[in-house]
């Protein structure tokens, strides 16, 4: 039913994502799909990496690690954003197209009052992505 599962990851806090990682791995095994781990970075040095190249290397290592841990086929896709604070949603939506994913599995925080002002990433992706979206509560 699904061929490519896109799983956005926050490389600064990969430990918080255990649920969505587990979920996407289970779905990948069930449908025989491959996972694309997508992470967004800016070009300025950040807490994860000093350069986009270093970021990409770390992301690829992460994907490799996940593939081995769960026994699934996984690749990495780095997306560049000029201003991650405000356009991470748009960058992720573009990544859905770029990776050709037909399912997005992503983790979202518990909803709170501020979601009325600034919608959560998961909510916005679910609203606008052409593919199926599964939002896993963290």
């Amino acid at each position: 039913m699904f061929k490519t599962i896109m799983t956005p990851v926050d490389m600064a806090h990969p430990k918080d994502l255990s649920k969505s990682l587990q979920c996407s791995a289970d779905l990948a095994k069930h449908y025989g799909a491959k996972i694309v781990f997508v992470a967004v970075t800016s070009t300025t040095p950040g807490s994860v990496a000093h350069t986009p190249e270093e970021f990409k290397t770390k992301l690829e290592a992460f994907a490799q690690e996940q593939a081995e841990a769960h026994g699934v086929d996984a690749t990495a896709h780095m997306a560049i954003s000029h201003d991650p604070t405000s356009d991470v949603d748009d960058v992720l939506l573009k990544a859905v197209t770029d990776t050709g994913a037909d399912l997005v599995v992503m983790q979202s925080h518990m909803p709170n009052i501020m979601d009325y002002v600034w919608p959560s990433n998961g909510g916005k992706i679910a609203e606008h992505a052409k593919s199926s979206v599964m939002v896993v509560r963290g």
Partner: protein
Amino acid sequence: MAEESENNDMGIPAPEGTADIIDTDYEIGQDNIETKVGPFGLDIHNPVFLVSGLTVVVFVIYALLAPTQAADFFGWLRPALTSTFDWFFLTAANIFVIFCLVLIVTPYGKVRLGGADAKPDYGYLGWFAMLFAAGMGIGLMFFGVLEPAYYFGTPWGDEPLGTVRPFTEDGQLIEANVAEAKRMALAATSYHWALHPWAIYAVVALGLALFSYNKGLPLSIRSAFYPILGERVWGWWGHTIDIVAVFATLFGLATSLGLGAQQANAGLEFVYGIPNNVTAQVILIVLITAFALVSVVRGLDGGVKVLSEFNMLLAILLLLFVLFTAGAVGIFTDFGKTLVAYVQEVVPLSNPIGREDDGYRQGWTAFYWAWWISWSPFVGMFIARVSRGRTVREFITCVLIIPSVVCIFWMAVFGGTAINDMIANLGDSAVKANVIDSYVPELSLFAMLESLPLASITSTVGIVLVIVFFVTSSDSGSLVIDTITAGGKIDAPVPQRVFWCTFEGMVAIALLIGGGLSSLQAMVISTGLPFTVVLLLICVAIWKGLAAERRA
């Protein structure tokens, strides 16, 4: 420093083709506090965020509680500094220009910001639009008419290089002096808006871009000091540098927002008869802040860039309108003459010693240099943020040479038209009435537009431009402050940039109502003196950094 970083803790090889990451144990964000206050997420640098915020509050309270003392002290301090240290400001600015020009021709010009394989983040159009909108736009609106007209007609003894006066004591034209006075007025104005200010911005921007994109240090002012201070930049040395930068940026923006609201209000009164009072000015500040808020929330690409491009388009339209209605042939001749005059006079004008034109050199030039320098952390950091992927040579050509030519053209169009109006309509020139006969600087632009057709439409465009230029300074400034106070992270949560943008508007309103805009602006400009030393050190750091980059 300056060694290719070895395998890091995760056993990942260093990036290839990007050169020379500085090997430091500092991790970006290690001093940050990540927490939640109610529903708001926070990711702030400890202690830069808190100390900067509190210092700003303390100074606002001081200006509100002791307005006379603050006005007396800072009103004395600023002119005292620019008059005493005029030679230092002039010499330093000359060094920055020469430094930049040397970088263009040396092999260091080949170094690419972001590593050998980096691609530019922005196309030329968006890049230029953002350069202008952040750093200079509002000044061009305010001084484009005022400054050339002032030098041309000044009866106050501050003619540039003590040049001839075109008017007699009783206001009659001295035909023989007109051409020379006009030439010098346009050259002297161009001097303040061309190579020197852009070299100041370019030095800061290049320092930050180099140490951030090529060396992997956080995008914060302190990073440019790594070659000089070493690991100490991560401690209180660095905190102090960043705090002073935040402080100068926030007060620079807030005071010009407050004073700008008064100017825009004067323009609205002149054009539409809208009452000129504190209520109207507070509404203007709220309006500008609201637009800036939308812009920062939409982000760099969706807000700041779009607004900057709109702004540039509108400014070009106004420029073309003035150019053609005032006579394109005459203006192009003026532009040619101004360029020649600039080249001829730039050396005598930038000579720091043995001059007698104190009024011009200390009152205008040193003031401008201190002003540009006090703004340079903000504008430089913003330019750095949008300049990844350019080579040093391309960067300096585009940040120094091209904006200089554009500014000289702008001055030739607006200033030339204004001076021609003063010559042609000696008795009833609105420019002369508002600049020379009675000094009402905020009306100078509108007075010039009045001498051209469709004045009501162009004045409206002028007011919109003034307001939008304030928005584009305010939004980019808020992003810069947010990045510095988040320890160089540009992905801090949205509420933080909303906080800084709002805070800046509130400081402006508090000072507008309570008084103190001028005194605190004087204080900000006074920070130009210590920052001049800082900028000279950045030049040394850039040189060292580029040398290491070439070896890599």
